[in-house]
């Protein structure tokens, strides 16, 4: 994924605040009554941020009739776009994602059409195109890749699927028999709509951090619940494909259902073979709070000024999030579909009428 690191208004604001603090916070201020010499401060030039609302256009297909569609991501921002080219005997679809600056294509489908009746066709997928990890090379799929993606992007039955392509004015109703039973309206079948409009208005704009999972674990030290424990939290960033992380900081806070709180916990950046993770091993001096613990807050700050704050009110609720993109666009999402990392700490004593038992899973011969 392409990344461009630029200067933003937030940094300029921070710089100005720093200058202001330096001036007013000095302990060497001397009151002067005659002709004070004003300090000369040249403020840094403000960069020009992109508009937080803009219109962007998908590239036009090269031939045939061209159709377009767009989808928003869970943050309510335009994320995905697709072009569809039809010429009566063939089709070509190209999918794009919005990386904050431009449309980046990530998958293409190409094949032939054979009329059945009316607007129905047998559509045979002949090639899948993919972008490589560098984001630079557009290549045809290998046989293995084709087989792997076929059931997800085309049909669970075969490379030939029944499709309906019903055009009416500036719209095209698209249906595909994804479960392979010949019908087009089953729950697993695919249906969408294209239009002739190649542009979409982005309700949000810019890059923002996000968290795809969190974890919190006492690593088995619950066997000695009154002793020290090591909660561990790992946060992963999807927008970072560079050698050095764009993340400036990750700070978490944990809560216990009986009211105890713990934090802030500042995570460490830990590169490994699969990417960059943020984690922290912590040792409690006192772990006397039995019950469910959960990571009720995570705050991720990018070096370019973008931030996101996740909060979960209780261990059973998904995170909600508020965010600010690198261009200054702010937004929120009520339900991120992500549970907070959590673990259970048994109490020091079972209590009257209770008995401590252990439920354990373990490896068997079918586990691998």
């Amino acid at each position, binding site marked *: 994924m392409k990344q461009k690191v630029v200067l933003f208004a937030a940094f300029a604001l921070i710089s100005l605040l720093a200058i202001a603090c330096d001036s007013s916070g000095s302990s060497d201020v001397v009151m002067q009554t005659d002709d004070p010499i004003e300090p000369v401060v040249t403020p840094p030039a403000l960069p020009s941020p992109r508009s937080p609302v803009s219109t962007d256009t998908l590239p036009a297909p090269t031939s045939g009739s061209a159709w377009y569609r767009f989808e928003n991501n869970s943050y309510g921002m335009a994320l995905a776009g697709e072009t569809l080219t039809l010429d009566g005997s063939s089709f070509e679809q190209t999918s794009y994602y919005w990386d904050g600056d431009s449309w980046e294509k990530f998958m293409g489908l190409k094949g032939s059409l054979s009329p059945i009746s009316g607007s129905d066709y047998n559509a045979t997928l002949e090639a899948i195109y993919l972008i490589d990890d560098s984001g630079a090379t557009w290549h045809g799929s290998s046989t293995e890749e084709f087989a792997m993606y076929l059931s997800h992007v085309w049909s669970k039955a075969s490379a030939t699927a029944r499709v309906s392509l019903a055009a009416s004015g500036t719209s095209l109703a698209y249906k595909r028999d994804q479960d392979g039973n010949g019908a087009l309206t089953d729950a697993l079948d695919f249906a969408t709509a294209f239009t002739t409009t190649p542009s979409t208005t982005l309700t949000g704009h810019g890059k923002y951090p996000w968290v795809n999972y969190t*974890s919190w*674990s006492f*690593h*088995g030290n*619950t*066997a000695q619940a009154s002793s020290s424990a090591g909660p561990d939290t790992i946060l992963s960033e999807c927008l970072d494909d560079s050698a050095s992380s764009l993340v400036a900081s990750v700070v978490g806070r944990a809560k216990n259902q009986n009211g105890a709180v713990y934090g802030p916990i500042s995570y460490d950046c830990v590169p490994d073979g699969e990417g960059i993770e943020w984690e922290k091993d912590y040792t409690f001096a006192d772990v006397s709070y039995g019950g*469910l613990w959960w990571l009720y807050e995570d705050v991720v700050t990018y070096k370019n000024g973008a931030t996101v704050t996740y909060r979960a009110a209780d*261990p*059973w609720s998904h995170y909600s999030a508020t965010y600010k993109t690198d261009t200054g666009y702010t937004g929120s999402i009520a339900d991120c579909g992500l549970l907070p990392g*959590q*673990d*259970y700490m*048994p*109490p020091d*004593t*079972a*209590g009257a*009428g*209770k*008995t*401590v*038992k*252990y*439920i*354990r*899973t*373990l*490896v*068997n*011969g*079918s*586990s*691998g």
Partner: protein
Amino acid sequence: MSREKYTDTKLYLYSEDDTTKWLAVNDDWCSDLEFGDYTLYSTIQYPFEIGKKYLVKVVDINDTEGGYSIILQNDMNFAAGVLAGARTTMVSSPDTYEAMNDDSPATTNTLIADTIQHHSLESGDPDWMAITID
């Protein structure tokens, strides 16, 4: 063999009358000394109310198919032969507990103390089992 190839279980414990809010949860217990590389398995140590019925849910956090065994016992230590016996037990999919409606809280499968059960997890299909504490 990489441990990532093994089932990565997550355990949830519920009271019988509320299957929306778990009482306890655990992903990895991290007991290298017992399991060697197989550290992705789970343990819940819980003060059960005597005479009450509970429900346990097991999922694979990666939503992939794989086997696991499960046991309810009075302490942390496995009885002699339990670990080795489980490792040599192959479970075909679907396992016998699927017929006991074990993909829902209405399961008729009951986890009996000190009696190990060998399961196979289907993709996207959690396993439920009941526990009655005597």
